Every structure is written in C-alpha cells, then in structure tokens.
C-alpha cells in the first residue's frame, strides 16, 4: 500500500494530475476550540499623511521618488480580511504617494488556493545635470540643422547655444500575478507571471575612431517572466517540476546618431549601433530530494535551458556606398544550458556530518560562426572577424565534514575542486583545488569564537595566444598578459568571528577577514590583490523598552597590476586602493514615556578610491574618488487613542561625492569627447513627515 501510494504520487507528478489523497486527514477540527481567538472580518492598519521635501535632489530621489522639493502624500496600507471559512485576503501598499510605490493584493483559502496581484514602480535617477545638442527623432539622435562639425569639442562654435537639458533616469514598473493551488497536502501547483516595463534615458558612447560622443539613448525595455512549478512531497521524498520563460523585448533595436565631429573619412557622418536585441530563455527544471533515513538526504537538480536571439541584423555601415552583403540577415543564435547538481548529506551519529556534491554548469553555444567583413567607424574596411560563441563548462566536486567536539565546539573542513573548460579562450582548461578548515569554540556559555582558514590553488593547462584574424597581427594581445579570471592564482583567506553575550540583553559581535590573491604566473595584468575587512556591532536592551544598537566597520581592497605601453615587458605599474568605512547608531524608546515612542537612527558611510602609477621611476597619483554620507532619521509616535497614532518623522541626508572622471568636465571639456556634462551632485536634503496611523481593533 505504501509503495502503491508512492507510485501513484510519482505518476501524478509525471502526468501533472492531482492524486486523490484525503486532505488533512491527520488534522483535527478546531471548531470546538473555545480559547482560540481566530480573527474574522476586516482589520485595517494604515498610515496617511503628508511629507515635505526640503530640496530638489536627483540623488536623494534615487529609488525613493522624493526628487523634487515640495509636498508629497504619504500612504501605507495593510488591510486584512478573514472570512468565516478561513479565507484570508490582504491588501498591502507602501509609499503610495511617491514614484516608488508598491501595492499588492493576495489571499485565498490558505492551503487550498492563493492568488496574488501586485504593482510596483521603482525610479532610478542617475544624472539631472546633463546637457546635449542631440534631439531624439525616431531612433535617431540628430543635431541642429545648422550644426557645424569640428575636429574637437572646443572648436564647436555653436555648441553652447544648441544645448538642451537631459535627465538620465529610468523607471521600472512591474505587474506581478501569482496563483497557487494545493489540491492536498502532497501536491502544489504554482504559477507566477511578472511583466516589467523599463523606460527612460540611458547613456551610450558613440564613437568614430578617435572621437566619441556620449549620447542620451532611449530605454524602452519590456520583460516577461513566467515561472510555473509543480511540487509533490511525501514524508520521505519530494520532487519539483518547473518551467521558466524569460522573454525580453526592446522597442529600440538600433541607435543612429549624427557625428558631431568632422568626419575623418567620407561616410563617417552618421553612426549606428545595435541596442540590446530581443531574446528569450526557456528552461525546464526537475529536482528531487530523497531521505532514505532521518539523518540522510540525497538531492538532485537538473535544468535544461535554451537562450535564443534572432533579431534582424543591421548593415555593416550606415554608408550605402560601403555596404557588403551580410553572411546572414539574422544570427539565429542559440545557447543550450545544462545545470545539474547532485548532493548527499548524511549525519553519522550525533557528532559527524558529511556532505558531498557534484555540480555541472554547461553552456553549450550552438550559435553559428560566420566571417564578418566589418567596418570600423562606418568606413574603414577591417580584417574580417569571426564571431566567437563561447562554450563554458564548469564542474565542481565538493566534500565536507564537520565534527562536534565536546563543550559545543565544532571542527569543520572540506575540499572543493572546480574545473572550467572554455573554447575561444587563452586557457582551455583550468582547475582549482580549495581546502578549508574551521574551528568553532565556545569559551564558556557567553562567548563563541570561530576561525576559518582557506587555501585555493588555480592552475591552467597552458596559457596560449589566441590566433587573431588572418593577417591581423594588430589585434594580438601582449603574450605576457594573463587575464585574471584565467591566470594561475593562489588564494589564501582567514576569517575570525567572535560573538559575546556578557550579560542578558547585551550582544556583541565582531568579524574580521583577509584574503590574499597571488597571480603566480602573471607578468602583465592583475598581479596581486588583497582584501581586508573588520566589522562589529553591539545591541543593548538596557531598560524595559529601551534598545540601543551600534555598528561599524572598515574594509580595504588593494590590487596591483602591470602594463606595457611598448607592447613588450612591463613598463608601468598601478596600485589601486578602495577604502570604505561605516558606522551607525539606533536608539528606540518604546515604553520609556507614557503614550510616546521615539526612534532615532544615524548612519555614516565614507568611501575613497585611490590610484597610484609608476613608470621608469616616476610616480603619479590620481585624486581620490570619495563619497560621504550622513543620514539621520527620527520618528516620534504619540498614542492619541487606542486605534490612532500620530507620527512626526524627520529624515535628513548629507551626501558629498568627488568623482574626478565626471566633475567639472563640462560638455566640451575633453577635446575629442562630446560629453553630457553630467556629474554626481552633492545634496543636503531632508523630509519632515506628519502622518496618522489607524489600526482597527482586533
């Protein structure tokens, strides 16, 4: 009977038909439960109010929608409805008066069916300070009719008069639908669909050999995602069958632009680039878990996917005089993916636990290879190139074990071998062995210390020069260069963590880690890298209703690389160092004052990125890229009535940034690059909020 039941479930799973298993047969009616206070009817918890934003700030409004100064409506709602049959529906919305709003309705009969529909919008502000002489007409960025081309931006006489402001920003709007159906406790079907519309303006660098113009490109992207799953579960095994479809559509297949510079060659007056092509991805996934014994689990996952792209190709050049026939009108690109994972976890007694797993990620690129008689900058006939559809196969084999020692101590260790095979690559096959060990030791009842050491050694089977296009030695890489993701590398890492609870209500934590990368065979390219970080936090529950938390940390990333201007041995070196530090304080007084509650928060974050270079004994340094953020938040709640709370809120941000690649460049600051003149702007902006929170009685 047991086997028959399992076979029936398995058959069900394969055929996608729900088995007739009595629902909830183990359950017990709660109708007679006298003390169970099941909710019924409506319950509303909502905030409505107004907010005043003190200053215009694109950055302050990034992802939040508070871009412009002035009044905003605040709106948050959480409305629940419980029906007599147990049905539960919930309407939830936040930031409803802002551009970054969310609204979702979900509900149903829990354990039987559930439905969800949601909408969200998310603005992403980049630059408001841009200016451009280009105007979008269809899919073309055109210059004013009286535009006078020039060899450099400084010589573009009518430039300033022709500039118009342009905002670089996008907005994502997403509609999500979900449906889950559970015919019985063993089977569940679920379908989720998501449609996202991303629109706005981005930046595209349009170049002609040694000149370039930063262009305000349109963004009109649409994403459809369908995720359907069926799950079957019993006490000893479970399985899931899933189908995923990801469909991307771009309303703009190309971008054309007038060359604002004097064309170096005839035919270089209009540029044209391909924008992101439509694509599709379909995947079927089957996964299962089997528990032959309480302490053992075997799991397996297999996914088969296919990416396709078949957009019509643009011509080689915008110049009709310089056309060559394309080998195909559409690429018919196709990549098959296989992802498989097999894992075994078993506990031997209470002390020893081991894991073993094998993972395969295979990207099998079936895209046909053609020879392309491509043109540089719309004009120059270059040596033909072939496209290089990349295959990548990554295999990982892992073994790990941990052993519980006396006094809650634990010793863990493991080994992982990762093998990667590629085509069209300087390295056909690389192999990395990683070993790690970790010791976790409690020092008494109130202190836990853990230390972990890891070592990884990556070797490749030989780094070779890729053959460039026939007759084109100009594109050959320096033979001493080692690309850092392919190069031999030794990596060592050390992690330390300490958690202390000196008294009840006081928690302290500290983590520190360092990682060293040594590219042992690299003469040119990334030679070494080092990462260090330390972070800590503390939480105090000091008195009844008084909670204080502090946190802070520092990390530093350093790397050294070498280059060769002479296309020979290294003749320059650069060291970059990125530092970041942060600190924060949170204070909550929930019960210290009758009817009042206070929350205060402060966050500080600072980053800097420095670059030093050396060549022939001379040193040079760039200014630091820096950013500094101070953020204060305070909320004061007053319990006006049992069901009504008045909240006064304050939020203030002080943000400064120095970014030399953009600051003070202007539109014509770089002779051979027509910029947008955009830069990151500092801001001091704040919000004052007054809202009323209504909560109906349970």
């Amino acid at each position: 009977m047991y086997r028959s039941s399992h076979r029936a479930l398995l058959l069900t799973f394969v055929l996608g038909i729900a088995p007739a298993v009595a629902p909830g047969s183990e359950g017990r009616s709660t109708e007679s439960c006298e003390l169970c206070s099941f909710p019924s009817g409506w319950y509303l918890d909502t905030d409505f109010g107004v907010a005043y934003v003190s200053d215009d700030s694109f950055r302050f409004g990034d992802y939040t929608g508070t871009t412009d100064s002035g009044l905003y409506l605040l709106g948050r709602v959480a409305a629940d409805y419980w029906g007599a049959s147990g049905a539960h529906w919930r309407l939830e919305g936040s930031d409803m008066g802002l551009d970054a709003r969310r609204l979702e309705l979900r509900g149903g009969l829990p354990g039987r069916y559930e439905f969800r529909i949601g909408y969200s919008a998310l603005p992403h502000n980049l630059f408001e300070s841009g200016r451009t002489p280009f105007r979008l007409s269809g899919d073309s960025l055109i210059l004013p009719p009286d535009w006078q081309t020039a060899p450099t931006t400084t010589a573009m006489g009518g430039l300033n008069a022709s500039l118009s402001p342009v905002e670089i920003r996008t907005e994502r709007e997403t509609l999500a639908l979900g449906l889950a159906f559970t015919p019985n406790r063993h089977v569940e079907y679920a379908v989720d669909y998501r449609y996202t519309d991303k629109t706005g303006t981005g930046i595209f660098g349009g170049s002609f050999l040694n000149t370039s113009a930063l262009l305000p490109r349109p963004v009109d992207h649409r994403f459809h995602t369908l995720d359907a799953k069926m799950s079957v579960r019993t006490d000893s095994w479970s399985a899931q069958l899933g189908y995923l479809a990801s469909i991307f559509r771009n309303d703009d297949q190309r971008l054309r632009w007038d060359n604002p510079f004097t064309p170096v060659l005839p035919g270089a007056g209009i540029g044209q680039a391909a924008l992101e092509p439509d694509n599709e991805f379909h995947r079927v996934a089957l996964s299962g878990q089997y528990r032959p014994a309480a302490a053992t689990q075997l799991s397996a996952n297999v996914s088969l996917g296919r990416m396709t792209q078949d957009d019509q190709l643009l011509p080689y050049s915008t110049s009709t005089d310089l056309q060559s026939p394309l080998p195909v009108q559409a690429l018919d690109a196709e990549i098959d993916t296989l992802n498989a994972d097999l894992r075994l976890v078993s506990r031997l007694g209470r002390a020893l636990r081991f894991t073993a797993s094998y993972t395969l990620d295979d990207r099998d690129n079936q895209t046909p290879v053609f020879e392309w008689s491509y043109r540089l900058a719309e004009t120059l006939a270059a040596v033909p190139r072939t496209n290089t559809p990349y295959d990548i196969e990554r295999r990982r084999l892992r073994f790990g074990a941990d052993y519980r020692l006396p006094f809650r101590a634990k010793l863990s260790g493991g080994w992982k071998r990762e093998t990667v095979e590629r085509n069209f690559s300087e390295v056909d096959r690389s192999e990395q062995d990683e070993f790690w060990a970790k010791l976790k030791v409690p020092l008494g009842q109130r202190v836990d210390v853990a230390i972990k050491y890891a070592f990884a050694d990556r070797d490749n089977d030989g780094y070779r020069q890729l053959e460039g296009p026939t007759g084109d030695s100009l594109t050959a890489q320096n033979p001493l260069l080692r690309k850092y993701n392919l190069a031999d590398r030794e990596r060592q890492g050390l992690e330390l963590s300490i958690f202390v609870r000196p008294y009840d209500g006081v928690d302290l934590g500290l983590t520190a880690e360092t990682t060293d990368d040594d590219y042992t065979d690299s003469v040119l390219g990334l030679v070494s890298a080092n990462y260090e970080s330390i972070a800590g936090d503390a939480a105090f529950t000091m008195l009844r209703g008084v909670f204080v938390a502090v946190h802070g940390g520092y990390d530093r990333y350093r790397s050294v690389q070498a280059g060769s201007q002479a296309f020979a041995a290294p003749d320059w070196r650069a060291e970059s160092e990125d530092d970041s530090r942060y600190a924060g304080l949170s204070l909550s007084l929930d019960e210290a004052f009758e009817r009042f509650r206070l929350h205060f928060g402060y966050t500080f974050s600072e980053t800097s990125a420095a670059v030093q270079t050396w060549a022939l004994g001379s040193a040079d340094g760039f200014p630091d890229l820096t950013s500094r953020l101070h953020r204060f938040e305070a909320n004061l709640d007053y319990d006006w009535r049992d069901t009504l709370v008045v909240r006064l809120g304050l939020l203030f941000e002080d943000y400064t940034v120095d970014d030399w690649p953009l600051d003070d460049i202007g539109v014509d600051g770089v002779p051979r690059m027509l910029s947008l003149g955009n830069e990151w702007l500092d801001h001091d902006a704040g919000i004052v909020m007054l809202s009323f929170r209504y909560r109906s009685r349970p």
Partner: protein
Amino acid sequence: MTLRTALFGLLAVGLLWSGAPRFVAADDGEPVTPEYSEAGADDCLGCHQEPSMAEFFRSPHAAVSDPRAPGGQHQCESCHGPLGAHLPMHGDAVVGFGTETHTPVDEQNAVCLGCHQDEAAHWASSAHASEDLGCVSCHTIHTQHDPVLSLTEEPEQCYECHKKERGQMHRPYAHPVRLGKMNCSTCHAAHGSPADAALIEVTLNETCWSCHAEKRGPFVFEHAPASEDCSLCHEPHGSSHPNMLTRTPHLLCQQCHSERDHPSTRFTSTGIEEGSRSGFLLGRACMNCHSNVHGSNHPSGATQTR
C-alpha cells in the same frame, strides 16, 4: 569522467551506509508514545495566555484550512509535540524553539522541515545548516508579520552575521537594499540552493539576468567575461565606482586587454588636467567608445563599439 565515477561510487556507498540498520530506529521494548490532547489547543491555551498568543491566530500557521499548517493538524502540538510529553512523567519533553530551550537545534529544525519541505530541499547542505542555525534564529513564528519575510526588515536580520555586507550596501553605487527596495533574498536563497553563495538561480549570471535580461544575449559578438560571470567586473554588494564596477574602469579593462594596436597605457593625472584631458580616462573611460560592453549584435561590433 573519473571524478564523476568516484562521486557516484561515493554516493552509492553513502546511501547504503545511511540505510543500514543502525540508522533505523529499532526499539526493543514497548515505546511509550505520548498522547495528543483530546481538547487540542484549548488544553494549551488554558495555561498559555500570553498576549502574544492572540497574534498567533493571525499567522499562517494558524490556518485551519491548510492541511499542511499546524492549524489544520494538531494545532500547538503539531510543532511542540504531544501534550502527553509535557506531563511530568515524560520529564517535560515538549519541543521548544530558540536558544533558551533544551530541544537541540536539529530537532527544532526537523519540526519545521517536516512541513516546509520545499525549503528543506537544499537546507541540509546549506551554509546556514552547517552553522547550526535554527529556523527561529531568523524567523519569528507566533506572529502574522515575520520580519525576515519583509522587504524592508529582512536585511537587518542578515546583517547580524553578515556584518561587512551592511557597510557594502551603504557604498555610493549599490543595489537599493538600504532603501528597502530590494532585500538579500532578492538574490540569495537563505535556505540553500544548488548555486554558489546560495543564489536564487542556478548560476550567478542567471540570477543577474532575472532582472537584467537585456544583457543575456546571445549576441553576435560576445564579451567573454560578461557571458561567463558578471562578478568579474561588478561588485553586486556595492562599490566605490559607478555601475558597481570592481575598480576604476581604465584599470579594470586593462587587466585583460593589451592589444598591439591598443596597448595597455599608463594614464596619469595629466590626462585629467584642463587642456590635456583624455577621453580614455574621463566620462565613462573605455566605455566612451566600447559601449556595448555586455555584447554587441551589430555585424561591425567586434570591438563592442557598435
């Protein structure tokens, strides 16, 4: 092939071992099975009248209609064990949750995973399981609103252990986690997954493409690192450099590119001074020209400029 053979051999041995009789409960004597209460939750609530219990009945666990939920089964006893085990004769063997209980964390988790089997699929091999985390280390059970399931509140829970990530999320170029528009589980599966770093998709790139599908391609001219691993160039937890690049772009690109006609160049601060400003350094640096850096579908896009 050798590795695969070895692995399957090892798995077979492991399976046989795990199925051996010593792992099967074999009680020689008559087991004493504590009994479930006849009155169900009324028996528990007669004593446990904490104010928080009212909130429990708003939680998904209380749903009577759900045969998978405690409310549709033995109510309180579904998770805390039969009431009979709570009686003195059994030494108060009720199942407790959290750190202030005698119930081992494995047994606590077994209760949760008995119903939450989808979450259990990769739990056993997850990093969180190997750290002996209990489900209630992150989840709050007796409530309608579990903070760790909230878009805005979840990261605070994760930062308790993943401390450095809190600082990374405050870097100037980062996903909007600190603003409550994404959370850790937008990309990571806290209960484990087949992917490295417990990502929600089978690979890192698939995880990124779940929102950035326009970068998936396939393109006529691919850029190898973009096809292989987005994190070769991007730091998704936050960066000091625009577009979450791992380094300033003119150095990042030159770590892999040094062609004869475009050799790696030592750019100096002279290139940012007025009068000698360089388009190789300023603006978007290399991407001033090589804009289609994720791949180009233009037949003249071999260098990602079209």
